[in-house]
């Protein structure tokens, strides 16, 4: 898997995982997609998400974080989900396989549940939903 804009979160070091996540979330003007799990469908979806992360709309960068299990970063992600008012944000964390952070306010949006397909369309929609969250906060 030749990934250009995807970072794999380490599973054996909680503090390193936290600091990697923190470093990405603190980047301004960057949309961050988090894909959770390590199933066949997730492995098929990662290259698609990586491809989509190469796109940039209205000068916003994109990046993908691959969190390969539901333990690592769970507390941090749950905290962000709790603070979110996005559709499906109140779902059980273990039932979510993809979410996106908005580029400026770092709010969670574009949540995809386990029973949904990770296609180009759904992943692109997830990126767009997160970016749309902060669209009106853009000063132009």
């Amino acid at each position, binding site marked *: 898997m030749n990934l250009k804009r995807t970072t794999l979160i380490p599973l054996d070091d909680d503090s390193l995982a936290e600091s990697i996540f923190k470093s990405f979330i603190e980047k301004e003007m960057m949309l961050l997609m988090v894909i959770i799990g390590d199933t066949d469908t997730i492995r098929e979806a990662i290259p*698609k998400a990586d*491809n989509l992360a*190469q*796109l*940039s*709309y*209205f000068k916003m960068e994109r990046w993908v974080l691959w969190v390969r299990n539901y333990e690592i970063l769970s507390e941090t992600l749950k905290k962000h989900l709790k603070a979110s008012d996005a559709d499906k944000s109140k779902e059980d964390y273990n039932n979510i396989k993809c979410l996106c952070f908005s580029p400026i306010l770092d709010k969670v949006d574009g949540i995809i549940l386990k029973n949904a*397909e990770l*296609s*180009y*369309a*759904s992943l*692109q*929609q997830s990126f*767009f*939903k997160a*970016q*749309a969250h902060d*669209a*009106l*906060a*853009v*000063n*132009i």
Partner: protein
Amino acid sequence: MYYLKRISTLVLVCFTIGIQAQIISVIENDKDQKRTISLTDKQIVDINSSLEIQLSKLQLLDAIQQQFPQLKQHLELESKLIKLQQALRNQSAVISILEKQLATASEQATFFEIMNGFLTDIQNDPLLNERYNDLMAKFFSTDTFAPGTVPEPYIFSNLNNDMLQIEQELASLEADIYAVSVLAFKKDSSGGDRVHIQNYDTYTNRDYVTIKRWVTSLSTEQKQQLEALNDIAKQNNLKKTNVFNELKIKLLEEFKSITCIKDFKNNSIEFINNIQLNDVVPTEVKNKIEQLNLLITRFETLFLLLKTDMDQWQITLLLDIKSEVETIVTLLKTIDTNFSDVTTLINQTRVKTKFMPLVSEFNTCYATINKDFETLKQGAALLFNLQNNYIANKAIGTEVLAFTLDNLPDKGYINLKGTGQRKNGDELLIELVLRLPSAVENAPEQVVTIEQREFIMQLTGPRSEVAIGLIFANPINKEDLNLQNDRNFFYTPSAALLLKFGSNKSHFYNDFLDFGIGLNFATPDFNTDGTPEFGTGIITTAFKNIISAGVNYNLTLDSFYWFFGVNLPFNLPGIPINNIKN
């Protein structure tokens, strides 16, 4: 428990089918307030509102597919086309925003809103989703992907090509396989009338009438206007029938040439009788002439029938005449062919010279008849147009537009104020029909109603009404009045100005309860001196003003009285109760 589950599943399935079956959605726009009238709501619309008719093309497609499986191939293509059209409806806005160097915040918001809708449409259709995935995979393939570009122009361009391809495939299928039309009618006690739906037909609106909410009386001007409108309507109706009758008489007058066929027939019979005895004439010729004679007899019978039918011709029965004319014209052609055959055969015999005058007579007569039939056909065409207008309420006139699924407008509008005179309780019928061409030539098209919505028009919300009737008045302090009459109740004419409410949720309330409250004015004669007194007070009514009750104050005698009224909508012998007059 098991049966409960089964029943609830069945109810759920029925409910889902019910929802799926809804192709026509109606949104009432009354005083800038919009209300969607679902199938489960009471089908009541405000009599002065305007309606927005929305059609779900995908539901329509499903309904057609279920009823007409033979159209499967056509419908599948149309379904794909509609889904693509739906997904790409805002593509130009997306491209335009993407082309901007610096899109504003609101433009970006618009972009994301459109793209969200587009991607939802894509995911809702498995075929489109697959196509989108393929196109994205191709876009990101190392050969074509250039960093810094976005896939939308590439995706839209390919999907547009898909649409063109489907359109070509549709065009290659049989043209005009079916058409869809939307019709609306108003049904009232006098019959009904068609109603114009903007976008779906080219009818003009009827008289623009707003049903007044606050009525205190019928003014003289209104009465005159009503009478004038009534006269105009009568004149128009009369005029329509007169034009038809004039054309009919003219056609019959011009159609005199038939006398020549009678003469010809008599002469031909004489000729045949003469040659029957002549052995020189071959049997073949004799048979042919007899055959011709039979044809002429048949023609004569048919013509007499046509003439009788034309004389009794009704504006609603034009198609019968049309088919009669066509039969006669065909028969005339057969006679002409037969006559040519006879002429050829006779020319080879010795009776040729005797036959020549008959040939000349036939040719002249045939030419005249042909000319007259041409006039008849032209005249009939005019009459057919008249008929179309005359029975426009029953047939689908040319004003009703026929659409295919891809050019069917999503929305249509009815302004109820433009539907002419109407009253509470009148019905509005909206129909979605499928029009299939007939398999038989010249036969009318097959019209199948796919969905129908029926509404009751009602002045909803508060309104005023004037009611006149008899009340039974009972003085409260009868002893103080020192009346000569011992009766407890006095018949008293009264008039009331009532405040009423029309409901858009209950037919039972509108049609039956119909409560009212207001001011009552009455002229009782408690002291029976022949001079009416004047009383006024509060009245309440129910059941369409049939029952009323209230309290009045007799201003002449300075006393209160209570009253009730029973204004039955029919007369009972011996009881001076009048009909309700509003």
